[in-house]
Structures are given as structure tokens and as C-alpha cells.
């Protein structure tokens, strides 16, 4: 479903993603793991047409996202690392806008919005502005939105960041169920190794832009002769802490926090 060959992305002298190749089969849940700044988000951005690769090829459901941009976009849904909802709009309106942008026909759109919002337990709050929602509810809404246009592939970039164990657990239950019922291929990144171990069929570990290991959770543990995925991860990527420099997005977020009284 996803096929990546010799993917490279460099920003000036810095190579964020360096010669990465992997395949994800149809209906598979693939976890992409790596320390901060390893190149996970950059890879997702290239897969989802937001960034142009420096070199290498990508195929999504047999399509090159570079040349068949809009065709490819119809085939995937994405939940970004940062929230991407419109806080001034209601939950239902966020879904509706998405449905229109993805050309989901009117009747089907209404029906699927209701279905998904009920599944993610948001239907009772459909008329409320999203800015009043908790972090977990916003995440659920984003994932529900990602499924709205029945994508073949769903990208989840650290979807459980900042959520409590209850919300995380519920979220993965929903994702797994939809993976089974709608046969959606799921490509996710996370920092929680237990989640990856539990949810993913296969795992790829990336570090400093290079893919350092690939396989089922069991295979990876065996390769590294470790008991848990966490230990395997540390063995593969070392235990030094990676500091990312704060980008303009982080500064803006700080600014907004200042103004909204720390509510975000």
C-alpha cells in the first residue's frame, strides 16, 4: 500500500531523512519509531505531499504523490502531531468542512459524520465549538475526521501525545477496530513503546535519518536480544538525549498560551 525507495530529504547541509526504504502492506498497522528529530515527521510530510523529497520515490496505493497529488490525497487521511481543528467551528462543522473538501457526496457525508461521531462518542457534543473540548476529545475528533472520506491509508503522527492512559487506550481500540472493519492501512508514529508493541503489526526504527531496524515487534526484540520493545529501542538508538531546537511553531504556541491564559 505504501512503498518507499531510497527516500532522501535534506535542508541545506542537514539531511533529515537519509536513504530510507520500506514497504507497508494493505491492512497493516505500521509503527514508525525514533527519538526526537530522527526524521519521523519529515517522512510523514513527504508521504502526505506537504514536502517534496530531495530524491527517492514514494508510492501510495500505486500512485506517486508528486505527480498525482490530488489523487493521492483522496486516498489517505492524516492526524497531525499538532492539532489541526478549527476551534471556532463546532465539531460537526469541522467534519462537514472536511467532507466537502474531500468531495464526499452530501448524503453519504451526513451519514458517515453521524456514524463516526457516534463511534468516537462525540455525537452528543456535535454542536459545541471545538475550542471548548479537552485534549482527548480533540484527538478523537481529528481521528474521526481522518476516517470520514474512507481513506485507504491513515497517517497518525504521535496521536496520543499528552493524553491520559484512558484516552490512549480508547483511541487505539477505535483505530484497531476501524483497521479491521474498513481494512485501512495505518502508518503511525509514537513515543510510547508499549503502544507500538500492542497495536502495530510491524515496526520500523529510524535514527538520525536512517532506518536502523525493521520487522515485527517480536523480530525486533529477538534481533536485539532484549525483553521489551523499550529496551530494544534504546539499544538501537542509544540513550543520549536528542534536543530539537524550538522552531517558530513552538514560539507561537507559547505566545498563544500567554494570551489564552494557559488553556491550550
Amino acid at each position, binding site marked *: 500500500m505504501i512503498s518507499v525507495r531510497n527516500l532522501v530529504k535534506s535542508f541545506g547541509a542537514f539531511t533529515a531523512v537519509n536513504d530510507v526504504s520500506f514497504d507497508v502492506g494493505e491492512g497493516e498497522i505500521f509503527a514508525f519509531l525514533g527519538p526526537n528529530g530522527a526524521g519521523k515527521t519529515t517522512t510523514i*510530510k513527504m508521504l*502526505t*505531499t*506537504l*514536502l517534496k523529497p530531495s530524491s527517492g520515490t514514494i508510492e501510495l496505493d500505486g500512485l506517486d504523490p508528486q505527480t498525482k*497529488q*490530488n*489523487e493521492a*490525497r*483522496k486516498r489517505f487521511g*492524516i492526524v*497531525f502531531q*499538532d*492539532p*489541526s*481543528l*478549527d*476551534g*471556532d*467551528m463546532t465539531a460537526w*462543522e469541522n467534519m*462537514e*468542512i*472536511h467532507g*466537502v*473538501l*474531500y*468531495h464526499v457526496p452530501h448524503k453519504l457525508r451526513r451519514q458517515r459524520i453521524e456514524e463516526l461521531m457516534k463511534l468516537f462518542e462525540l455525537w452528543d457534543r456535535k454542536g459545541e*465549538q471545538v475550542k471548548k473540548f479537552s485534549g482527548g476529545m480533540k484527538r478523537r475528533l481529528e481521528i474521526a475526521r481522518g476516517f470520514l472520506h474512507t481513506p485507504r491509508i491513515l497517517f497518525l503522527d504521535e496521536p496520543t501525545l499528552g493524553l491520559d492512559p484512558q484516552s490512549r487506550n480508547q483511541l487505539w481500540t477505535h483505530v484497531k477496530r476501524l483497521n479491521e472493519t474498513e481494512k485501512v492501512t495505518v502508518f503511525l508514529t509514537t513515543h510510547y513503546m508499549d503502544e507500538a508493541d500492542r497495536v502495530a503489526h510491524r515496526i520500523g526504527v529510524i535514527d538520525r535519518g536512517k532506518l536502523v531496524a525493521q520487522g515485527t515487534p517480536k523480530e525486533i526484540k529477538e534481533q536485539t536480544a532484549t525483553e521489551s520493545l523499550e529496551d530494544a529501542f534504546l539499544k538501537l538508538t542509544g540513550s543520549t538525549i536528542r534536543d530539537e531546537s524550538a522552531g*517558530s*511553531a513552538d*514560539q*507561537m*504556541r507559547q*505566545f*498563544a498560551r500567554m494570551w489564552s491564559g494557559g488553556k491550550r
Partner: protein
Amino acid sequence: MSAIYVLWLRELKRYLRSRVQLVASLGQPMLYLLVLGFGMGPVFQRAGNGSYLQFVAPGVIGMTVLFSSIFSGLGLLWDRQFGFLKETLVAPVPRLQIMIGRTLGGATVAVMQGLLVSIVCILVGFRPAHMALVPLALVFMILIATVFSALGVAIGSSLQDMQGFQLIMNFLVMPIFFLSGALFPLAGLPVALGLATRIDPLSYGIDGMRSVLLGQAFYGAPTDLLVLVVLAMMLLVFGAYRFSKIEV
């Protein structure tokens, strides 16, 4: 087309929902209209130019449309950081449609804001000279709104943070306002100032409004119309180009 409509509708709903912002954005025009309008009145009268309130009202309406439209374009900066921009950029919709939806939405909001201030102007005593020409003032409002929404989107596409926003505010938006002749007549200015007002797009918008509302024109309504239409088209193309280059 439905993408343009839904994004246009979004801008409109956001405007109607943020009542605080709606009221707050009326504050500044009110100051100019009431304090300057009545404060400068006697001096203006003695200089033999008639009522200052009459003179400044089209300027204040133009100013409102300017601020409102350019801010809606710069609102891209917020969407960029608080996420909604990405949601639209990965959607299977040409970027041109997204840009047009936003620009039209911002322009519509700006025109509504301008109409609101027009009503206040009439309430405090502004009287158009020719009632029949009042609809033409709306045409000029729409043109001003389109020009500056497109400019706002073009700039907003390349802005990364709040510092940049301040820069634009102080070195672009305020000069556009002050050089537009919103507050003073364009005739008989020193050469340098006269030149600066001639390259300010808003001066054509305000001149156009004065010419249809008061029958006083400096460039003349046909020139104003031509300049604004050409500029609006150029800025739409430029804004669309800048928007297509956004990488997040």
C-alpha cells in the same frame, strides 16, 4: 467550487461568532470618526473646506475595510500554527481554490465591517451628497476589500511569527492608512508626500468613495476604478502564487 464556498462560509461564521472581536474592531474607526471628525471640524471649516465629518467619513469606512481585510489575510499565520492550514493543504483540492475561498471570505467580512461603520457614520450625521450613487460606494468597498485580502494572503503565506506581524503592521498597514488621504485632502501636498500618496492603493479606494459619496474627487472615479480592478487582479495572482509555495 464547493471547496471555495465552504471556506468562504467558514470565514463568515468565524466573524459572526467572535462578537468581542466584532465590537473591538469598531473601536478605532469610532475614535477617528468621532474625535477627529468633531475635533478637527472647526479648523477644517475655517480653512474653507466644509464639514470635516463629511470629509473624513469615507476615509474611516475605507480604513475599516483595509484593516479588516488585511488582517483576515494575515490570519493565515494563526491557521498555520494552530493547525487548520495543514488540514486544507493536504485536502484533494487545488490550492488556488483554497486561496480564493479564503480571500473572498476575508473580503466579505471586511465589506460587512465597512457597512457597519457606514451605518454609524450616518447615525452621527454623515449625509451622502447623491443617494443614487451610494451603491457605487459598495463597489469601491468590495474592490478595496479584495485588493487587501489578496495582499494579506500573499504576505501571510510567508510570515512565520508574531514579530513579522508587527513589522507588517508598522511598516505597511499603518503607512497605507496614513498615506491614503483618509484624513486629509490630497490636493496641494508637498511633492514627496504627493508621490507617496499616489503609489498607495488605498488612496484610490478612498478617492473613489469620496467621489461617489460627496462628489469630490482628486483622481476621478474612472481612474480609481481602473487602478483598483487592475491591482486586485494582479494581487490575486500574486497571492495565489505565494500561497502555492507554502510548505509546512
